[in-house]
């Protein structure tokens, strides 16, 4: 008798489990086909640290103060700095070894001029490792607003440019 109850209850737990899978089979899928539909990252997504540009001139607002390079745990940031006639400093070369970067946001927080921001770009795969050495031109954030999504499901265009030269 006990074994019979065992068989019945065991079989019933199996049926209940199948009921759950049936329920889930009828739900709408949570995945989407990526290249056909692009994923819009959430606002604040950390892609890679990139340089904010002045919306008018299109030049970076970085002053080359090296605060980010000092804050970086791995030392993946390096730059060369020159001085203009009006004594203001600007970077002539800015390098980020993205292959070693761990996207920890410490450089962005260290920047006293808000000249660094995390790019929402996530398609950063390359065929060759040396292509992950980003230079000044590559690191410039676009002047046009970039689409990002919010937690409430809306997509908004956010400007990543701006700021006064420090």
């Amino acid at each position, binding site marked *: 008798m006990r074994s019979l109850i065992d068989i019945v*209850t*065991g079989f019933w*737990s*199996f049926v*209940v*489990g199948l*009921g*759950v*899978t049936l*329920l*889930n089979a009828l739900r709408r899928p*949570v995945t989407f086909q990526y290249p056909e539909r692009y994923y819009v*990252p*959430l*606002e*604040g*997504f*950390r892609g890679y640290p990139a340089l904010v540009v002045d919306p008018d001139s299109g030049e970076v607002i970085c002053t080359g103060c090296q605060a980010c390079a000092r*804050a970086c*745990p791995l030392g993946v940031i390096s730059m060369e700095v020159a001085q203009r006639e009006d004594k203001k400093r600007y970077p002539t070369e800015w390098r980020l070894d993205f292959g070693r970067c*761990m*996207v*920890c*946001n*410490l450089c962005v*927080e260290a920047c006293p001029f808000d000249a660094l921001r*995390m790019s929402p770009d996530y398609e950063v795969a390359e065929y060759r490792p040396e292509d992950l050495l980003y230079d000044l031109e590559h690191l410039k954030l676009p002047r046009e607003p970039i689409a990002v999504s*919010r*937690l*409430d499901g809306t997509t908004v265009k956010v400007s990543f440019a701006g700021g006064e030269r420090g």
Partner: protein
Amino acid sequence: MTAISEVRPVPGGLGEHELLVNMGPQHPSTHGVLRVILRVDGERIVEARPDVGFLHRCFEKVSEGWTYPQVVPLTDRNDYVSAMTNELAYVLAVEKLLGLEVPEKAQHLRVLIAELQRVASHLVWFGTFALDLGATTPFLYAIREREHILDLFEALCGARLTYSYMRIGGVRNDLPPGFDRRTREFLKLMPSRLREYENLFMKNRIYELRSRGIGRVSAEEAVAYGASGPTLRGSGVDWDLRRDEPYAAYDRYRLRVPLGRNGDVYDRAYCRFEEMRASLDLIEQVLESLPEGEVRAKVPRVIKPPPGEVYSRVESPRGEVGVYLVSDGGPNPYRVKWRAPSFVHLQLLPLMAKGHVIADMVAIIGSIDIILGEVDR
């Protein structure tokens, strides 16, 4: 190819009917690169010896060369399934060393984030544990629900796995707009999903037969081996750091601590599963009473704690994560010792596995929920 016995001599030699079986390091059910050397007599395990260290990345040594704030993103890489709790353990240790007062709101946010992380971590555990026992479907469902939490974390700090969110003196930023509403939606959805998991897996007869009475550890043994977290509570020891030694703002909240009785795979799994419910309850409490104010205390740009040493511990989803910090007054920690619960629990493996069959071994490893990143550091 050389036999394993030649590479590593077996103490006492092999018995007449005994065989050495190498489980791992690339076994899908070892949750990473864990190698377990099994001495089996037929199908029965006579001895199980875990061999760890394949994922060693010199975490403790690397920390000594970095400044205090720079170590925070590194702690993410220890227990990568619950990175927030690791960061919390580290920043609490540094704050203790500095004697720093953390703003009230940051304390509450830390509880909120740590509990969300606990649910996310237990969902990964639930999925992989079911996968180990041969049920593929719960894994897909658990990962689907975890995605809600990852979305919340992405909006919060911009990353989905290695968050780098906790800061010495508080947290990086306040909650983004819509966080509260999305979390409440998740809280509303989750209990029904947990009931589904129960119907699908936790109440399944085959699962019960495979987990009851397997890998038993008595309460005395668990305490003697230094177990903590659900592995300890599964044996019926009522010990939870969040309640018994509250850190952050845990002392302001009511916490339900589920307990097991027999200390077998079933009870440990039960504890973890029920902890998800307890955490959801806690998250709701935090959302109700989140204060206003600053989220980050003012700290100097270069943090130089006074010379001294501290030990700080938190209850991670796996057990007690402890950070032992020694400062010599410089900008870099002199010594960082990381007490990883998974590493401690792995010691229990020979005890748990003895006398069971190889298929049970997989269930036992799943039930102690080891993360090899944390074991090897």
